[in-house]
């Protein structure tokens, strides 16, 4: 389905053949397991995260069916509690972040004009870990052993005494396992974006989406350790009798909450930030102009990622901490809305001063603005402690976070899906089908979640598997349930649309939208080496820039073709001056083996087969040692003198 490679002016047929030979992967089963191509890995992230989304979404439909009427008996309380926990955990950890990382994986090297991620094997490894960790967690559900403590798993309900069985061990180990993937992907993004940008792409020409991914990656680096530590302590408490969260032996249950939210609040921005990046990436093509206020948006991205580490206590406004600390965290939470406001009005200004082309991606961006702004407002309301104490842990909060998560993350993802589908698959999607999907998803979303504001205010707590008939609860809950079915139909149409495009879609040209960033300056789908000639960047909108186009055609130079091996360019962090060409690693099965060894390790920890775990740990160490073992080279090449 890929377009044939016709040599363009500037690059010879021999160069193309050589590039193809160095970068191409045979369509064999083996290459399926060993690939390190960021585009294949990115696609896998998208598909796998989509799969977990469907599982988590279907869990939500069961929950909504149970809640349609008061005192219904569709599921037992134990089942319901596992369902909502898996729904929340999977949506946050197995869907939202990996999905956005999938976009990042596919797009970052293309947008910055590179041939792959900085560490392609680490990238493959990260994907396998994500897949295994996700399956590890979901596999517990059919056995009735899934996590059942809510996605933030407060102590001491998570302790062995109050929660026997494997439930919370699955949670702690699953998230620790997954954390390996998220951390390695983040490191990879940071190094890629700092070192592999096309020559000329100085920091002030980096696409906003890449900025967002990098900021996200930094947040992961500094936020995730808190969660990992929390889960390690939980596991030790449960299995080995330590007392971190046990007040009867000097432990403290609020320690869990502090550590969780020190991670958890940045995490919600980890989710929304790349999604906002997608919005900034999609808008130029459909408003026919660059996004207004590039420096302001970069500033917002950076300031959100910093301030987000200073607001975590707003999730603990009802725990009775001192008022002084509440007023501080309340102020910080209030201030953090400002950078979001800047971005919203920058996009509005972009639309108001541009020319709108009302295609499906733009529809989803508009849906995003409407929904996210409403969700942001309720967030700003919670920032006021007095109000939050009234609505926290009620359905009002559930309404808030679905507005920001679906409005702020899912809508942009769908916009991105329609926008980049031609690039990813080489096929156009069906416009009418896409419009239908948009309207169903948009309507379904609001019909489902708007009423939650109401019955939250009317006193309905969250995480109840059933409720007593109350005026204002029954009717609106039924409306929510109906809305969730509507939403599901809409999402089904999205799925149908994607399948239709893959099977029947019109072949897509390299640049169907006249997009502004570099991914549009190459074929759809891109060749394994991304760019026959690595472009040179002269402005913020390289794909609209004749100079960049010239640099890959008549102005192509051998130092940007690099066909002598599997090579790409390393440039300087700030100005993207050419530093040197580097050799990129080839495909390898070691990432898969290492991830498999980790899976054995975590599974044996789960079932308390500690000797097996010890062996698995040794295998992990050995695999890493072999993986990194330096190839033997002659002393002259190494530069050994003594």
């Amino acid at each position, binding site marked *: 389905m890929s377009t044939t490679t016709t040599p363009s002016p500037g690059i010879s047929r021999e160069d193309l053949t050589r590039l193809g030979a160095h970068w191409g992967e045979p369509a064999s089963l083996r290459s399926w397991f060993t690939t390190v191509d960021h585009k294949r890995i990115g696609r896998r992230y998208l598909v796998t995260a989509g799969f977990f989304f469907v599982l988590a979404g279907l869990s939500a439909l069961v929950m909504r069916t149970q809640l349609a009427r008061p005192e219904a008996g569709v599921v037992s309380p134990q089942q319901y509690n596992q369902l909502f926990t898996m729904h929340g955990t999977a949506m946050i950890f197995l869907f939202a972040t990996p999905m956005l990382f999938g976009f990042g994986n596919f797009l970052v090297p293309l947008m910055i004009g590179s041939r792959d991620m900085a560490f392609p094997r680490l990238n493959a490894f990260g994907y396998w870990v994500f897949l295994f960790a996700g399956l590890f967690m979901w596999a517990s559900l059919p056995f009735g052993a899934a996590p059942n403590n809510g996605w933030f798993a407060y102590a001491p309900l998570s302790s062995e005494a109050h929660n026997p069985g494997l439930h919370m061990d699955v949670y702690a180990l699953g998230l620790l396992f997954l954390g390996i993937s998220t951390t390695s992907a983040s*490191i990879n993004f940071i190094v890629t974006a700092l070192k592999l940008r096309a020559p000329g792409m100085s920091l002030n020409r980096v696409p906003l989406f890449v900025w967002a991914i990098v900021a996200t990656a930094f947040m992961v680096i500094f936020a995730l350790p808190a969660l990992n530590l929390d889960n390690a302590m939980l596991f030790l408490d449960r299995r080995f009798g330590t007392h971190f969260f046990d007040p009867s032996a000097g432990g403290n249950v609020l320690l869990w909450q502090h550590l969780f939210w020190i991670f958890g609040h940045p995490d919600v921005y980890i989710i929304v930030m790349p999604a906002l990046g997608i919005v900034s990436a999609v808008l130029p093509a459909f408003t026919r102009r660059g996004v207004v206020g590039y420096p302001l948006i970069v500033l917002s991205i950076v300031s959100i990622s910093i301030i987000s580490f200073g607001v975590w206590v707003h999730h603990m406004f009802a725990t009775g901490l001192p008022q002084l600390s509440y007023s501080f965290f309340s102020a910080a939470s209030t201030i953090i809305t400002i950078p979001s406001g800047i971005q919203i009005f920058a996009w509005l200004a972009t639309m108001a001063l541009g020319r709108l082309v009302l295609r499906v991606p733009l529809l989803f961006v508009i849906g995003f603005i409407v929904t996210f702004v409403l969700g942001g407002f309720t967030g700003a309301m919670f920032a006021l402690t007095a109000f939050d104490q009234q609505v926290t842990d009620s359905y009002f909060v559930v309404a808030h976070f679905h507005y920001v998560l679906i409005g702020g993350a899912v809508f942009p993802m769908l916009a991105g899906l329609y926008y980049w589908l031609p690039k990813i698959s080489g096929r156009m999607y069906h416009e009418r089908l896409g419009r239908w999907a948009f309207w169903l998803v948009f309507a379904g979303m609001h019909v489902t979640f708007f009423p939650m504001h109401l019955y939250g205010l009317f006193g309905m707590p969250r995480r109840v598997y059933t409720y007593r008939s109350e005026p204002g609860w029954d009717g609106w809950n039924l409306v929510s349930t109906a809305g969730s079915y509507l939403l599901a139909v809409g999402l089904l149409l999205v799925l149908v649309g994607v399948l239709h495009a893959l099977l029947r879609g019109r072949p897509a040209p390299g640049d169907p939208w006249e997009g502004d960033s570099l991914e549009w300056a190459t074929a759809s789908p891109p060749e394994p080496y991304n760019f026959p000639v690595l472009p040179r960047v002269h402005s913020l909108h390289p794909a609209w820039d004749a100079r960049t186009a010239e640099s890959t055609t008549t102005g192509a130079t051998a130092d940007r073709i690099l066909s002598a091996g599997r090579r790409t360019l390393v440039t300087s962090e700030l100005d993207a001056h050419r530093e040197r060409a580097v050799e990129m690693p080839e495909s390898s099965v070691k990432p898969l083996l290492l991830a498999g060894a980790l899976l054995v390790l975590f599974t044996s920890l789960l079932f308390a087969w500690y000797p097996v775990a010890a062996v698995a740990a040794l295998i992990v160490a050995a695999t890493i040692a072999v993986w990194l073992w330096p190839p033997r080279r002659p002393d002259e090449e190494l530069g050994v003198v003594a």
Partner: protein
Amino acid sequence: MVMFVATEATLFACLLGSYFYLRFQYGPQWPPDGIEDPKLLKPLVMTAVLLPSSLPVVWAEHGIRRGQRWRLRAGLTATLLLGATFLTLQATEYAEKLKHFTMTTDVYGSLFYLITGFHGLHVLVGLTMIGWLLAASLRGGSFGAHRHDRVRNAAIYWHFVDLVWIAILFTIYLSPRL
């Protein structure tokens, strides 16, 4: 590697933060009843062993940058010995402490063993890296003036393990006496 160390450092920061949080939530008596303030002599000796162990690494790294493989080999061996001494001392310290309290005695015990044990684990990982480098450099054909990324990465990690120990020394051994 710098990013990896950054995330690890955050982990230790959270860990030590948790120590102080639990301590100040616990009340005036710390360590809790029945556990004495940790003795200082042995940890200070351990510090004296671990801290200087960064110097041979620096020396070795500078050596290999100039292509002097013997400096790499010698420096790594020295560090390996110092690190192993540190771990041995830690093992003897554990042997004494375990007679008085364990990880399950109370939250102080949990913290003590988690923090020092986690650091010990890092020392072990660091030593594995050093040992691995040493093995690779003994084989020959691995590192030289033009290829020493792995040496630099391991060195960064080792310095980090070293520095964290200072924070732990302060938190676990010195701060209860303040």
